[in-house]
Structure formats: structure tokens, C-alpha cells
């Protein structure tokens, strides 16, 4: 499945959940550290610890620049059916997914 198709699939789910995504506080410091760790190691196991790609596509700022935060949040929470990208909703809240998307868009510090 190509990325475009994946995003179009994710869109209806996204629209249903937009209300929940719109607002919300950033995670607390300890949780931010845990999320940074998850990004490095667990996202990294498919996307590379430097996010240069692997079984999953690269997630460097240039790679995600053309996609909206909402679409990326939806992909993280719902996964991409038909690909190895799993739904992270059992492990992450919407605010946490949004925080991760900001880290992806900003790139490594």
C-alpha cells in the first residue's frame, strides 16, 4: 500500500476523532522522557533509531513536512492496515501522539 492510500484510509477515522485531538496539554516531563525513549527505540526498531527508515519509511522532518499533524497523529494511533505499522492507541494518548508528531516535524535537537 502506498502512503497516499494509507492516508486516505486514515482520513475518515481522523475526522471522527478530530474533536479529541484539537485540545490538550503536553505530557509531563517524565512522560516526555519516556516518549522520547519510545521514539528512539520502539519507533526506531522499524524506522531506524536515527529515523532514516527501515522496514518502515524514513521520518525525518523533510519526510513528514508535507503531511498535516492530524494525519500523522491518526497514523500513529490507528496504524496503517495492510502494513506492519501497528495502532499505538493501546499505548499512547492522542496528546502524546501529537507531542511525538511535533518532535518528528522539529527533527532532532
Amino acid at each position, binding site marked *: 500500500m502506498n502512503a497516499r492510500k494509507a492516508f486516505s484510509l486514515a482520513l475518515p477515522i481522523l475526522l471522527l476523532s478530530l474533536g479529541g485531538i484539537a485540545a490538550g496539554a503536553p505530557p509531563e516531563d517524565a512522560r516526555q522522557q519516556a516518549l522520547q*525513549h519510545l521514539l*528512539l527505540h520502539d519507533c526506531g526498531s*522499524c524506522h*531506524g533509531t*536515527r529515523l532514516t527508515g527501515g*522496514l518502515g519509511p524514513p521520518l525525518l522532518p523533510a519526510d513528514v513536512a508535507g503531511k498535516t499533524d492530524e494525519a500523522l497523529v491518526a497514523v500513529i494511533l490507528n496504524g496503517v492496515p495492510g502494513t*506492519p505499522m*501497528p495502532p499505538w492507541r*493501546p499505548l499512547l494518548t492522542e496528546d502524546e501522539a501529537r507531542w511525538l508528531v511535533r518532535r518528528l516535524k522539529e527533527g532532532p535537537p
Partner: protein
Amino acid sequence: MRRLLQAACLVLASCSVAAGASDACLSRGTGDLGIVVERTSGSLQVVDTTRHVELFRIEGLGDLSHASAVFSRDARYAYVFGRDGGLSKVDLLCGRLVKRVVQAGNSIGGAISQDGRLVAVGNYSPGGVRIFDAETLDPVADLPATVEGGAASKVVGVVDAPGQRFVYSLFEAGEVRVADLHNPAQPAVTRFPGAGANPYDALITPDGRYYIVGLFGEDGLSVLDLWNLSGGLERILPGYGRGERPLPVYKMPHLEGWAMAGDRAFLPAVGHHQLLVVERDSWRELGRVAVHGQPVFAVVRPDGRQVWVNFALPDNDTVQVIDTQSLMVIHTLKPGKGVMHLEFSPRGEEVWLSVRDQNEVQVYDTEDFTLKARLPAEAPSGIFFTARAHRIGL
């Protein structure tokens, strides 16, 4: 002076020798040595498995996420496959990087040929397999992973096989290929389409006969009998999930080193908390073992009596031990968060576990499960001992 230095290395266990330093080379056998990958720092440790100490720390190996390694047949050198396409040759006795080539954009692992002269690397980007001279790391052959009318596939499950062959699988195309490298200038590639949806990894049985392909895109596995290639691929354990909805898979299982214990194979049920036990040759299901989480590695102790299993997130703080006769879980360990890999000593009296989030490697006795040693390591992942040098498929 040199001998003094060596003695100091062994006693202090802290010989960090800069790349290029050769005056501190050890003069000893390598049969009880190994490497521990430190994946975020692009470094690795050379370890002594008898004394449980670090001998050298070697830096500058690039991006080592998902790194794996094979050994030269004299077990002096390790070939390390990095995520960034880097192929590094490391001297275990001198603790230094001998040569490093960046041969692709993104790679997944590799293998060394039966005669030890060729190293094959499987690539995600640009896809395909590249073959290098083991001595010089000069390029020897290029095996693209394209299919008619399609883009290049990611290559997974590269193994060596008897007959100077490499066997590998194509993730997107669902195909197995066997490359005969008797004449490296003209590799003879035989294709086996129809392996199934999205092969994610593969293993070869320790005798080099069966190549078993795990599938992500469907419930089942494929087997190729390398003694009878004309028989083609056989699908085994079709529909093993029995319609049960699979759980999200937060980490792909790895098949290399998966468990062949005598005539029993222990295979992962992708997306389920189970190991599937099948009989070799008939590939009939003998049973299932319910385990703590989704298995990532299941490695058989060299004598075949136990299988040790680690798990995917969120259960990666646990390791379980299965008795291969009764198919019962006989012990559960909690080494700490992020158990990434495990490796047995050559004859299996000890097992080394990398515990990533505790920045340490733990060594356990496999008879009474006591913790025998801890070695500090920076976010350790893969552990590879030189005994692999003399085993088919590792």
C-alpha cells in the same frame, strides 16, 4: 611491555583502545570471544565470555540500529551490518575497525559464504543483495531484487547455505531467491515466487537443508527444501491464527537463531502470545506454547533441551524458558526493561542477555537460572559470539 599491557587488559577489563591502535593486540585464541552491539552510540564491545569482561570498545561504526554480525572462519574478524548500509570489518584481537564501507542507503543484515571468502549484505534501500570480498570488502557482485514491472523489494532473511549459496527473501514481492556464487563474476540466481504475503525474516536449519520464511501479511510460513529445489516452496501452518484477531505487533519477530531443537521447530505466531511447535520434515503441528507476550527471539540452547524467549513491547522486560520435551514454561525471568537479544555460550551453560534500558548485559546460568555476572554496556542490543563462525546460517 606489550605483554604487560595485555595482562592489564585482562585484569582491569577496561581496555578501550582507539581505532588504529595496534600495539595492544592480544595474542590468544578467539573461541571464547564475542561482540556486544551498543546501538545508539555506534559502538561495540569485544567481550571475553570465559571471564565475563570487556576487552575492547570500538567506536565509529555508524548507525547500528538493528545491527547484526557474522564472523570470519578463523574467528578473528567480525563483519558488522549497520542500518545505514555500513559494512564494518572488526579485528577482535586488536580491538579495532579494520575497514568500513557504506555499500547502500539502508540495510538489514547479511551472511558469510560457506568458504568464508564472500560476505553478502541484504538491503532495504536500494533493495537487493550486494556481495563483497571478505578479505578486502571490495564489491564482487550485485543481485538486484526487482521483479517484472515492479519496484525493487526490500530484502530480508539473508542466509548462507551449503554449495556456496546465499538464500534471501523479497518483502514486497513475496519471493525467495537462491544465489549460487561458485563463480562470483556470474552469480546464478534461481527464483521461487509465491512465498506468501510479506516475508519478514527467515532461517535456515542448522544442517543447511530447509529455509523457513516467516510471513507478516498472512498466517503461515513457507519452506524451501534446498536438497530438492525442484519441489519448490511449501506453505506450512496455514491459518495458524484460526481466525483469532491478531494483536498489534510492536516489534517484528526475528527468525535467525530461531529454535530447531532436534526434530522440533519452535516458530512465532505473529500477533499472538504463542510459540508454534512443528515437526521437522512433515511440518505437522505438534503443539503450542502459551507464553508471556509476543515472542521476538526464541533461541535454542545448544544441546536442544531449552528454548529461551524474549518479547515485544510492552512485555520486553521478561524472558521465559521452555522445556523442549514437555513444552512447558519452566522459568520466568525479569531482567529489566528492554531485553533485546540473547546468546548462549558455545556449549550452553550460560546465556547472555542484553538489557537495553538498564545499560547492561546480564549473564545467567542456564541450569539454575542464577545471575552470574553483569557487564555495563550502552543501550546494548545484539550479542554475537565467535562460535557462530562455524555454524551454517549464522
